[in-house]
């Protein structure tokens, strides 16, 4: 029987770790895809695991159990921002490899190299729009910004990508 998200969250709040495990298993792929688009392949899975541990400790603060997916995605996104800040302190943007053209035979590497040069929120908005097919309202709720900000981030991201594909700076 497919238990509802709300019921699983309710059980997890009571301390049922197996119920939380089911929630983790259901959300895992989506959360890693988001993290990968914001911080890259290398650190994405670890960041998601850390975020899920944080989420377990904060389950009581989730107002509506049915909104678990958006809530945990927000925690993952914030964790990714922290990872990104740490990394920027180590590696300046100028040190990143030059982006390749998307027709590069190595699938995805070119996309990531372009994405990596955008601001983290722009990466997340592009990912949620292009990969997850979410609406502006859904993205706004997930990133805790307004739909107008979502559109602005997407527009700037596309302008930067177009500039980089012409060989310019982001």
């Amino acid at each position, binding site marked *: 029987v497919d238990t509802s998200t709300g019921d699983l969250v309710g059980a997890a709040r009571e301390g049922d770790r197996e119920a939380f495990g089911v929630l983790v298993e259901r959300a895992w792929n989506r959360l890693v895809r988001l993290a990968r688009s914001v911080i890259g392949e290398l650190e994405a899975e670890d960041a998601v695991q850390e975020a899920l541990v944080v989420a377990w400790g904060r389950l009581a603060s989730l107002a509506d159990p049915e909104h678990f997916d958006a809530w945990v995605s927000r925690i993952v996104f914030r964790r990714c921002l922290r990872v990104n800040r740490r990394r920027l302190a180590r590696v300046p943007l100028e040190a990143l490899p030059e982006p390749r053209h*998307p*027709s590069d035979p190595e699938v995805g590497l070119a996309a990531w190299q372009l994405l990596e040069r955008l601001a983290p929120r722009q990466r997340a908005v592009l990912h949620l729009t292009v990969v997850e097919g979410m609406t502006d309202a859904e993205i706004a709720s997930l990133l805790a910004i307004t739909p107008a900000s979502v559109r602005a981030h997407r527009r700037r991201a596309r302008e930067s990508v177009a500039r980089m594909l012409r060989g310019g700076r982001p």
Partner: protein
Amino acid sequence: MNDERNDRISCFEDELRRWGAQAPRTPASVARVRVLVRLDQSRRPWPWLRLAAAAALLVVVAIAVWQGAPRPAGESSPHVALNAPPLDPNVVVWVVDSRTTVYFVLSPDGSARGGVS
């Protein structure tokens, strides 16, 4: 010009869609187990907390051993050395702090006499 720009962006987004939709390296069932293990670990005190506690304990034990160690003849606690008169062998001095020194006077012959000053 705009068409060319849109084509480029469209090409990039196709690539992003393919890359972004790839499954994670760790399957969800394995990730579930790993996260539950992490929940266990997060309950235990942090390693640095345990290290700090061990270090504090070590310092306390070291101080206790130093305080209790027999001193060479003529050497005594700094407070006693500075403030105390020459001591009789039957007097035990307990320096509680810099302003409090307690003298236990032992009875040499085993009688009930003696006292604390």
